[in-house]
């Protein structure tokens, strides 16, 4: 990683996020380079999902600065105090996609429509082009034969693969995975991980992944960050963090998850 020459694509500086009196992120600083694959691990409530949700503009934050490719999540010129306008946030959102723990496919739309709806309505893509691209993506996730099915007719693993295709259809530069396999039966986890693994080979795609699948994290990520109490306690190459953690809390967490 040549962080000196590459300005980071994503940069959190001293971001504080509170829910009422609960501080979820505490002066949080974190940056991600373009194309980097970063896995966030840590106990629940440590703030890792909140990082993704803030990046997706699903949550505002109270203090600090956040930029994506130089675009501030606060209104330019307002001194970083105020949440940016919806219009400004929509520009940022165009570059970010998210895959949710509970898939969140639209139940009233077929698989194909789930994928083409946003490219057509939001990006203004021609229907034929959007559909051709959707079929390609469905082939990538191995579900081209399910294009006319409704979500309820698919297994959880299949739904999540459609959700990944749907997120990719918007051509995001940053793709966020919020515990993508946590809601799945164990035998369905593998098919979703293998789709994510394929995406990890895409050089330009920046990926942030919150997961409890440690072996998978080791395999796909360039960097693993261990979260505790709204901060990153320890981060580094996956072999270092998962193989030989220095921090006491990291060790405790890893042994609790592996046992």
């Amino acid at each position, binding site marked *: 990683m040549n962080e000196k020459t590459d300005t980071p694509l994503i940069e959190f500086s001293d971001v504080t996020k509170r829910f009422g009196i609960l501080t979820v992120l505490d002066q949080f600083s974190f940056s991600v380079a373009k194309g980097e694959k970063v896995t966030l691990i840590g106990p629940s409530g440590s703030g890792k999902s909140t990082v993704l949700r803030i990046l*997706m*503009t*699903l949550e505002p934050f109270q203090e600090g600065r956040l930029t994506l490719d130089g675009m501030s999540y606060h209104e330019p010129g307002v001194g970083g105090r105020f949440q940016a306008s*919806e219009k400004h946030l*929509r520009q940022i*959102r*165009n570059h*970010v*996609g*998210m895959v*949710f723990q*509970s898939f*969140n*496919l*639209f*139940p*009233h739309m077929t698989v194909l429509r789930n994928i083409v*709806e*946003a490219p057509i*309505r*939001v990006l203004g893509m021609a229907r034929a082009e959007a559909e051709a691209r959707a079929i390609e993506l469905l082939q990538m996730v191995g579900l081209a034969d399910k294009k006319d099915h*409704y979500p*309820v*007719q698919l297994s959880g693993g299949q739904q999540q693969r459609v959700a990944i295709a*749907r*997120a990719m259809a*918007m051509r995001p530069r940053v793709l966020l995975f919020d515990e993508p396999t946590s809601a799945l039966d164990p035998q369905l986890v593998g098919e979703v991980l293998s789709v994510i693994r394929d995406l990890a080979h895409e050089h330009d795609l920046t990926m942030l992944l919150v997961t409890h699948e440690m072996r998978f994290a080791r395999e796909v990520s360039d960097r693993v960050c261990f979260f505790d109490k709204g901060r990153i306690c320890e981060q580094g190459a996956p072999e270092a963090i998962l193989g030989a953690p220095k921090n006491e809390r990291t060790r405790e967490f890893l042994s609790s998850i592996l046992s």
Partner: protein
Amino acid sequence: MDWSAYLPMILQGAGVTMTITLASIVIGAALAFFFGILRVEGGPVLSKIALCYTEVFRGTSLLVQLFWFYYALPLVGLSFEPITTGILVLAAHAGGYGAEIVRGALSSVSTQQLEAARALNFNRFQTLFRISLPQAIVEMMPAFGNLAIETLKLSSLVSLISIADLTFTAQSIRNLTLDSASIYSVTLLCYFAMSLVLMVAIRMIEHVVRRGDVFPRSAHS
């Protein structure tokens, strides 16, 4: 009693009742969606206006509303045909209840769906019309079905502002024949038959919005 003489009258009265009911349901549904959506998406001012509308029409007597529009409104220079008055008042009444149904169903769409829409960068209108409403409509159908049948039954009140609907016709026939038992029995059967037709129609609409059996049935509908 000689039914052949009265049957055409009864059918004509039933026709008037059905016309008033259907027109009220259609206009009422439009009002329900308009004000129900305003309640949820209208912002501070418009949602209050929508709230006033629903509370006024839900909180006052339908019969008095009919009298007010029929007798009081002409005093300030606005007068409609009785049938127009009947339809408008019934529609406004159904719209008041319907707006609450629309509001409730829209609020029941899960935040996860709204977050997915946001992550795909749909704007507010697209999220409302392409994500929330199509799912909410499924939730609304059973309550709308009840409201449609309620509107049919409440339509008998328009007989009191001199509209020759089924109830009005039944009363006229009773005054001529003095055979209350027969005429009111037939009238009840007519209302029941019409409500059956309404129920079947609603089931068909529900089938369409559910896309057959594909759409998941929620536990409370």
